[in-house]
């Protein structure tokens, strides 16, 4: 893509959730490092896929971008405005351009609202405050809702129905219509097709790519299915344990995966072709994903990596630039120039916690 316009830039984002030790005072005894220092850019009109196993921080990343959580540290620059430090008013204005689609179409629609009200809600909120292009009347908004329903392929006649009258795929369409209501620039899709059957999944994926072609919306698309990610994204981010392991264009990543984790992930994904599937060699990773509640000063993938070296246990690998927009966080490629330094500085909360524990230790 030529002349890419940068719209979103995530810089050293960390999202740590406190673990309380129970008891009356709910003292913090540690942090779950759900997202642990990630940086990436998103350009206008592209689809960025995020892929990884459960617990790797995919959902937390997009939720932090939407400011559903306040990030622990880091910056989220949307058109140059840092959303993390923005005040309420700016946030309200900016959020109009950032919408989400959720995984579970059963949980993400209010069962007591009609389709009209579900799609209308964001429009109403912004219309009341006069943040839309102009003040719309109720009738005009209703027209808008009908247009949106048509766009996502739901019969306009169903406008007064409730979510339980629809199937999973149709509900996901309603969710998409709601996300499109405010003409956002970027849509964060958090596993929008994981709960759907294959034939319905294909319908929704086609709908999403149609919308992108028509309206030029940028997508950040999460999925754990590598086939889906390959199909829909222009660039792919592979995450593991709250860290980015590899970023690359989709074609490059699938034809030439560099990180051992990406290689294992690709070889573990089943291919629906018996000849290919039986013939190929599969890298089976040992063990499970470790718990993300520890501070790590080694490569995050060290425990399960088949190609680990001494170096990997000593410090966190920075992102190496392997050309063609392909960046990988692995010391196997340390002859390449460093694209980003890795920072493993503890956060404020952790420093406090550590100081406290040390004091306790000394007093003993």
């Amino acid at each position, binding site marked *: 893509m030529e002349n890419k316009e940068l719209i979103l830039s995530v810089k050293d984002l960390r999202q740590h959730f406190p673990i309380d030790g129970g008891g009356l005072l709910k003292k913090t005894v540690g942090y779950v490092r759900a997202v642990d220092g990630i940086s990436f850019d998103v350009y206008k009109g592209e689809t960025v896929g995020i892929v990884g*196993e*459960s617990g790797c921080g995919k959902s937390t990343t997009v939720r932090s971008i939407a400011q559903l959580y306040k990030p622990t540290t880091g910056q989220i620059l949307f058109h140059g405005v840092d959303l993390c430090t923005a005040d309420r008013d700016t946030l309200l204005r900016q959020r109009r351009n950032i919408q989400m689609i959720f995984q579970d179409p059963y949980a993400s629609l209010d069962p007591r609202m009609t389709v009209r009200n579900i799609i209308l809600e964001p429009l109403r909120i912004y219309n009341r405050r006069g943040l839309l292009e102009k003040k719309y009347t109720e009738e005009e908004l209703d027209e808008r809702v009908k247009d949106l329903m048509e766009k996502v392929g739901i019969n306009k006649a169903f406008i007064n129905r409730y979510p339980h009258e629809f*199937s999973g*795929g*149709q509900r996901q369409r309603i969710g998409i219509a709601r996300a499109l209501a405010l003409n956002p620039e970027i849509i964060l899709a958090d596993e929008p097709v994981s709960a759907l*059957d*294959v*034939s*319905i*999944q*294909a*319908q929704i*994926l*086609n709908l999403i*790519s149609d919308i992108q072609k028509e309206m030029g919306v940028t997508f950040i698309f999460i999925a*754990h*299915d*590598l*086939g*889906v990610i*390959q*199909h*829909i994204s*222009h660039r792919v981010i592979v995450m593991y344990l709250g860290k980015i392991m590899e970023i690359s264009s*989709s*074609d490059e990543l*699938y034809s030439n995966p560099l990180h051992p984790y990406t290689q*294992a*992930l*690709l*070889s*573990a*994904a*089943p*291919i*629906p*072709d*018996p*000849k*290919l*599937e*039986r013939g190929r060699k*599969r890298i*089976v*990773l040992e063990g*499970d*994903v470790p718990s993300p509640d520890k501070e790590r000063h080694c490569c995050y993938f060290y425990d399960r990596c088949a190609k680990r070296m001494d170096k990997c246990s000593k410090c966190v690998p920075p992102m190496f630039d392997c050309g063609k927009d392909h960046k990988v966080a692995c010391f196997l490629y340390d002859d390449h120039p460093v694209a980003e330094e890795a920072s493993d500085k503890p956060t404020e909360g952790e420093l406090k916690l550590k100081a406290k524990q040390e004091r306790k230790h000394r007093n003993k």
Partner: protein
Amino acid sequence: MNKFNEAKVLLEVRDLKTYFKTDNGILKAVDGVSFTVHEGETVGLVGESGCGKSVTNLSIMRLVPSPPGKIVGGEVVYRGTDIMKLSEKELRNIRGNKISMIFQDPMTSLNPYLRISTQMIETIRLHQDMTKQEARERAIHMLKLVGIPSAETKIDCYPHQFSGGMRQRVMIAMALSCNADLLIADEPTTALDVTIQAQILELIKRISAELKTAVILITHDLGVVAGMCDKVCVMYAGRIVESADTDELYANPLHPYTRGLIASVPKMDGNREERLFSIEGQPPNVIDLPPCCPFHPRCDRTCEVCRHAYPPVKKTGNDHYVACWLNCSEEEIQEAMKGGAN
């Protein structure tokens, strides 16, 4: 083609029908399903949610909750005996002993209050004449077999101390601890991540080869089927619409539904610009299905006869069965049209 054709038939399901009574009418979850499993063979049952995969297998074990469910017809013949006719006591000798099951969610299928050892020893002693100590040793042996590290100490853990993949391993160990001939795996890897899924699938493959266990694998993932199964049955709206050897099915799918299903999976080597093939519409509601091909509203090759009668199951080629009017002769279609008109 299939190396299992000469092997002994282990389980034969004939025209199995399981209906559920609901307030809105009779729900025909399974409506005339027939297939056979040979010794040591892995059979895949594929289909979308609600197509009756799981109910088929619950019916084989007679585990369908009744009421509202009822097995209204058909036979399930296991080594020459019809399971449907056995008494509850005789059935218990087979269920969990000769035929055992693993389920989708390993957390809900293990009892969180009991140690792994208690649960495994109970199963083993129920079916085999063993002392507690012997049963424990057997359990440890099985846990080692499924690749649980330091099984001697891990056996006294509670289920919550294991991760999802480990729990599924425990389930497999438990299911196979009584030398089962047939393992029914109901979406065993759906709740797991791809890397863990790869581990579990490798394990099932290895164990079924080592212990010569036949496997019925229920899944919606066509990739899993391609790697695991010798034979595949594709289900739609309570019936098997196509069954064939895995290679044959993928290379030469005859039913439009199978073809659509295979085409709508995004492939990793696919062209991104291309639109995915998608089957329009929704799977039908199986309550009060009209007596016609249930796939015809979504099919891209519908003809007149599809709206009139259910297509008969036709054998085309080597062990390839398909239920579609496209594979029937002109006379049969005429016959059905007349029957439908009457």
